[in-house]
């Protein structure tokens, strides 16, 4: 906001500098978080009150419209601290990149549009007031004076509020294209010019009210359109990067942090537990387990020791690993994936929206019709230019696509607002229309239909001792199975046993001493237990062993979404990189008929492409790197907020909360929205079919034009609001 003040008062530009000097000794941090699940007054006060009690936080403010929390804090407060605090309150939060240029830029654009809209509204009301007097019979000098005052208001208003249209039209014309803004600008300028001429000639009709009203309604459409996009853009683009483009390089035993792009083949890279592998390589030292779920869709972590081949994007879980780089930058598997995505995207033909199709058919007819009217009336009146121009301009105003400009944005805004409240964010403007055409839905398994986090299944069967020891051991490890085991046990009210000498053995498990007995929790061979055929963690108490088995938790709403899609008559596919057993089990549980297991990224994309060549319109829902190619190949795509950056970037919509159920709603709502858009086009088409002839025979007056314009615009907006 300082920019506005600074520009309003260039002389005080020294003041902000002085202010920032005064603030310099108080280090401040601004944390921006996306909180997708807030929806009511209670959410606002719960969050703001709780954060007010958190030490180090100066103030916080929740924006419910954008579902965004901004926190002013001391510099030692990390976003992760605030996220943890919100998590304890039961709200999921994601970090946003504060202070990015794009955000302030969109805010500025929004304010600018709103300002133009306000000015146009003011001018419209005042000119209308004067016009009503003229329509109700003022004539002679009074009418001329009213017209003159109207002109004084209208001319600067058109100059200020009409700029977006003039700018776009100029850009399009210079590029040799014809878009909707060109006839609009033409109509605005011609009508204004004619009205000024008529005023100076003491003419009976001036169209200042129509010009300003046209601008007002069109700006309202633009603003709605902008709002729908801005909300989506700010949240989707600014979800902070999960990947850190930095790596720790080991040179002669010394560690240095470098950018990933600086790494070369043969370098040694250290990856700490919890870190993501920045490059492809071979493990040269250390033992650990790797979570490959985002790359391959496998639920289970794999063991990594010396000689294991690893690829970029995998997450190191338990022990530090030293990796010799075999491929970095352009050659890494991560980058090859990006190339595949780029290919798939260029293969997807550019989608033509309904609005574009309508504009293409409609834009040339407007000037042609009014030109035709001009020529015919020149002939009929035997060369009376003034009458001919008057008819031509009335035709122009009536054909001008006021309702057409509102037809799409009003519906899209209403629909995307509804979806946003349900937790679905539309990133791409045309996604809603594409979604309406979908007849086949392809789901990824791990992380999409399931949470990607295992949950223990047989805790009740274990004796109390085993549970208490297991909890103590599990607490000492960062392994996902251990974390989930610990959470499950705590939820049952189990308290940890006094286990001493806790040691985590990377790649194997955790070991400790309990009443003089060695206890272990980890891999079966290391613990001395027989492996069972499901995902499990093994516990040994002296010579007794026990297996805690796990299943991947279903994402909330997964069953409902598949049922709802079946009810809507959509075909549902499950395609996963996981082993056939796991995929089949899930497919049966959710009642999905078509499934495919052990699919490589290319296989997924190929399957999507094959379905589409058979004529299906595919919605792909996925979260992993292995899904990105399929996501960008599909007709339309959705990824959850927990997905990897690359996947979110490749998809058209982002699911903000944990629930997957909004997808079914989105399909239903998009079909409805698309129907409303078509209805709106028909509606404004019918208006034109009826009233253009009236204008052409010279029966339309300025009052008539103004009334038609507002009635059809309001009808279109009301129709959009019928969305349920």
């Amino acid at each position, binding site marked *: *906001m*300082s920019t*506005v003040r600074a520009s309003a008062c260039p002389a005080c530009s020294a003041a*902000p500098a002085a*202010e*920032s000097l005064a603030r310099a000794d108080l280090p401040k941090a*601004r944390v921006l978080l996306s909180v997708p699940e807030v929806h*009511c*007054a209670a959410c*606002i*006060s719960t969050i703001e*009150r709780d954060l007010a009690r958190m030490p180090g936080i100066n*103030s916080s*403010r*929740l*924006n*419910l*419209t*954008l579902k965004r929390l*901004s926190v002013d804090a001391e510099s030692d407060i990390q976003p992760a601290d605030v996220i943890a605090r919100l998590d304890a309150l039961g709200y999921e939060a994601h970090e946003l990149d504060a*202070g990015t240029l794009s*955000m*302030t830029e969109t*805010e500025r654009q929004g*304010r600018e549009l*709103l*300002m133009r809209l*306000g*000015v146009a509204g*003011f001018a419209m*009301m*005042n000119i209308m*007031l*004067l016009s009503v007097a003229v329509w109700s019979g003022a004539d002679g000098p*009074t009418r001329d004076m009213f017209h003159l*005052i109207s002109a004084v*208001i209208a001319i600067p208003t058109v100059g200020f509020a009409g700029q977006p249209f003039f700018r776009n039209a100029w850009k399009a014309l210079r590029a040799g294209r014809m878009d909707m803004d060109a006839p609009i600008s033409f109509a605005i300028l011609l009508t204004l010019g004619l009205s000024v001429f008529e005023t100076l000639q003491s003419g009976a009709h001036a169209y200042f009210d129509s010009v300003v009203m046209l601008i007002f309604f069109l700006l309202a459409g633009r603003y709605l359109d902008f709002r729908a996009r801005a909300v989506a853009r700010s949240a989707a683009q600014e979800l902070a990067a999960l990947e850190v483009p930095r790596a720790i390089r080991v040179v002669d035993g010394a560690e240095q942090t470098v950018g990933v792009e600086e790494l070369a083949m043969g370098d040694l890279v250290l990856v700490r537990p919890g870190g993501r592998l920045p490059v492809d390589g071979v493990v040269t030292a250390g033992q650990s387990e790797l979570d490959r779920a985002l790359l391959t869709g496998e639920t289970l972590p794999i063991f990594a020791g010396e000689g294991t081949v690893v690829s970029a994007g995998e997450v190191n879980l338990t022990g530090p690993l030293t990796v010799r780089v075999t491929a970095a930058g352009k050659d890494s598997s991560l980058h090859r994936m990006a190339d595949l995505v780029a290919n798939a995207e260029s293969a997807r033909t550019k989608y033509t929206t309904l609005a574009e199709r309508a504009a293409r058919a409609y834009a040339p007819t407007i000037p042609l019709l009014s030109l035709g009217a001009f020529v015919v009336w020149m002939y009929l009146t035997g060369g009376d230019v003034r009458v001919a121009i008057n008819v031509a301009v009335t035709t122009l105003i009536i054909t001008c696509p006021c309702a057409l400009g509102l037809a799409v944005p009003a519906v899209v805004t209403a629909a995307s607002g509804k979806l946003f409240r349900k937790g679905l964010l539309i990133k791409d403007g045309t996604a809603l229309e594409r979604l309406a055409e979908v007849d086949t839905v392809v789901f990824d398994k791990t992380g999409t239909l399931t949470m990607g986090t295992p949950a223990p299944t047989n805790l009740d069967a274990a004796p109390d001792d085993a549970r208490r020891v297991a909890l103590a051991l599990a607490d000492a490890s960062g392994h996902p199975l251990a974390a989930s085991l610990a959470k499950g046990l705590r939820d049952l009210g189990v308290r940890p046993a006094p286990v001493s000498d806790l040691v985590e053995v990377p790649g194997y498990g955790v070991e400790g001493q309990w009443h003089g007995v060695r206890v272990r929790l980890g891999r079966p061979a290391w613990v001395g237990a027989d492996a069972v055929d499901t995902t499990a963690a093994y516990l040994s108490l002296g010579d007794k062993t026990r297996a805690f088995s796990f299943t991947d938790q279903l994402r909330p709403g997964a069953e409902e979404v598949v049922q709802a899609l079946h009810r809507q008559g959509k075909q549902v596919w499950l395609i996963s990189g996981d082993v056939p057993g796991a995929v089949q089990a899930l497919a049966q549980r959710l009642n999905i008929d078509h499934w495919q297991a052990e699919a490589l990224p290319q296989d997924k994309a190929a399957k999507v492409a094959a379905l589409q060549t058979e004529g299906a319109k595919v919605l792909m829902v996925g979260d992993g790197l292995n899904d990105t190619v399929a996501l960008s190949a599909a007709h339309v795509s959705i990824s959850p907020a927990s997905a990897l950056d690359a996947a979110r970037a490749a998809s058209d919509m982002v699911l903000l909360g944990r629930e997957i159920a909004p997808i079914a709603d989105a399909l239903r709502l998009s079909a409805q929205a698309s129907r409303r858009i078509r209805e709106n086009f028909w509606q404004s088409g019918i208006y034109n079919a009826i009233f253009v002839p009236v204008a052409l025979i010279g029966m339309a007056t300025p009052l008539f034009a103004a009334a038609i314009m507002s009635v059809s615009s309001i009808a279109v907006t009301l129709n959009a609001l019928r969305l349920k």
Partner: protein
Amino acid sequence: MEVLTILIPVSLILGLMGLGAFIWTLRKGMYDDPDGDSQRILTDEYDDKPKPVDKNG
């Protein structure tokens, strides 16, 4: 008709005041969170104004 010489300036000035008020509310960030504002009236905490617009952006 002389009354018009008073009424027209009056209506224009009133309109301009409205426009001025609109621009003021716009600059104060009062349209930044319409959903939140409609909910905030339900809380009993005294909340005199929207968050001051951030100096840095």
